[in-house]
């Protein structure tokens, strides 16, 4: 029983950065912008969060700096895809490279340095005493709770408010939105920025809560898995919770299976295999239910052009 609790606890921790990244990408893609640069913005957020916390000894400052760093990097993507109408796939890849490169460079002097402060667990009075569920869900770091709350809030904003209608209509039919007087570019800039902030947040989670140290490549493809999770979630933040923690479980599975004598490199493959399998399952569901991506995803909007 204790083992199961410990596995599920680690699942929650491993799934949180994926959830944060996915919420952000959902918001960005809902506005019609495809940002493939999550891996880079996450890496940058991870090292900025780490270094600012290391210097100031204040993880909240580190977190804020990380969020902003992701947001600022995403503005470059917004500029290329919205203002100069570049190919979003390429721009996103460039963002990923820039983020990974900068993070590697900034992080060099922090390799192996331990972080004395971080976000540690906060037990929620009462709820944390519930057997089984308590220690898994109600004795986590504050960022875990924030992640869940943000997922619900994002869902509410996207589907129950005027802002949400605006974001989604810009992603579905920018021409009609423009005719209604909506500033398509502004909405897309903001949505991309928010998505970048979430990616920076996700990165900071890695260094400030998940494992308080910096190693190069510590994002380990999570940014790409986020892109897949966005599809799995069908651009719905509530479904993202399910997907992210499912993948958190897959992540933890590697460590559980290790004592069985399966070689480590083979175990390391599992999340990537699972990603492909999950996409296959999602594709079948999409075909059956006629779901799909925002209609104008990845296409630049040019005012006044047919």
């Amino acid at each position, binding site marked *: 029983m204790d083992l199961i609790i410990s596995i599920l606890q680690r699942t929650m921790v491993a799934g949180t950065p994926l959830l944060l990244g996915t919420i952000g990408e959902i918001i960005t893609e809902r506005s019609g912008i495809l940002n493939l640069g999550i891996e880079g913005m996450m890496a940058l957020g991870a090292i900025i969060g780490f270094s600012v916390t290391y210097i100031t000894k204040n993880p909240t400052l580190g977190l804020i700096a990380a969020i902003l760093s992701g947001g600022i990097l995403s503005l470059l993507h917004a500029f290329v895809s919205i203002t100069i109408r570049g190919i979003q796939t390429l*721009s996103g890849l*460039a963002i990923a490279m820039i983020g990974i*490169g900068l993070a590697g*460079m900034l992080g060099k002097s922090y390799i192996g340095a331990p972080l004395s402060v971080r976000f540690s667990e906060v037990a929620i009075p009462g709820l944390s005493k519930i057997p089984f569920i308590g220690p898994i869900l109600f004795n986590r770091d504050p960022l875990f709770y924030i992640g869940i709350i943000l997922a619900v809030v994002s869902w509410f904003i996207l589907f129950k408010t005027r802002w949400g209608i605006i974001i989604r209509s810009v992603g579905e039919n920018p021409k009609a939105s423009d005719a209604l007087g909506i500033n398509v570019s502004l909405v897309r800039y903001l949505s991309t920025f928010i998505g970048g902030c979430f990616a920076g947040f996700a990165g900071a989670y890695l260094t400030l809560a998940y494992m308080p140290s910096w190693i190069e490549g510590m994002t380990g493809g999570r940014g790409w898995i986020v*892109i897949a999770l966005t599809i799995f979630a069908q651009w719905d933040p509530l479904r993202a919770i399910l997907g992210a923690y499912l993948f958190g479980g897959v992540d933890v599975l590697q460590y559980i299976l290790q004592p069985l004598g399966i070689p480590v490199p083979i175990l*390391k493959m599992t999340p990537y295999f699972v990603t492909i399998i999950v996409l296959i399952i999602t594709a079948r569901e999409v075909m059956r239910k006629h779901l799909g991506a925002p209609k104008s995803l990845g296409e630049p909007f040019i005012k006044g052009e047919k």
Partner: protein
Amino acid sequence: MHISIEKRGYVSKKYYTSVYLISIFVAVILSSFIFLLRGINPFYAFSKIFQGSFGSPFGLKETIAKAIPLLLITEGLIVAFKGKFWNIGANGQLLVGATFATWIALNFGPYHSSISTITIMFLVGFLGGALFGLIPALLKVKLGINEIISTLMLNYIAEDFVEYLVYGPWKGKTQYGFPYTDNFPQSATLAQIPGTRISYITLIIALLSAVLIYLFIEKTKYGYEIKVTGENPHAARYSGIDFVKITIIMMLISGGLAGIAGVGEVAGIHRHLTYPAQISSGYGYTAIIVAWLAQLNPILAIVSAVFFGGILVGGDVIQTSLGFPFSTINAFNGLILIFVMVGNFFTEYKIKIRR
């Protein structure tokens, strides 16, 4: 004052070329900030990089050695990108090609002549890359799976698989515990131009691939169909182009050429299979930029590959003499890619300011 963006009509070659040269120049200038961030004089850094890549005979030789795999991969990527298939998986395809060739080298090489061993290695290398490229192609045409994600995931899977081999069942008995396979027998290694790490055969194949891909795209029916598919998939379907067949063909070529690059690396440079990051220092990703810098032109890709070969060597230089991690090079690459797109903008549009 009113600012508007308008489409440009005809653009002269001279304007076109100068826009791209200026774009790259600005990207280089901006990248000096990366050096300033660490308190290093950018002029000093650039002079070091130039010396190490183009400004010395040794550097030039290394630059060419790295340009060869880049060119091979780029030629394959050009085919895929022309058909709007986002093959981000060349790194994985390269590794699988290298793995297939390694198996031949170790199991077939010791008992056969150099000519037959090398020929078979290149053939299976192509086959390995092609088959690994076929997976995302099938996933896309049969199930509609986004190829960007599938190719990226397959990169990680290929890396982990090579790691598994060199730490596990293929670990060499003569390598003192290092994660290498045994060294290839003489018959399975490629001759190098004396004093360099450039193998004749791979160099010739790479240059030949540029010409062949040019002819394939411009002069053959399939090449034409790939272009039409890329430019307008709907029109392509209505005009009877078999989308499934075309996608499979382009990914077989794309993956296959990356696989050949992998053969060149293991047979020409390392002479054993080793840690994946050693076999390919991100060639598959860098080649994406090589392809776009060349505007998907197979011949221009030669120039662009040499330029990026120099940048990769520059990455080694800033690592050894300035203490930067190699990954810094990603930031340069990304910045150049951004500025290639800024250049695209200025060749396609003009900004009009009216009062």
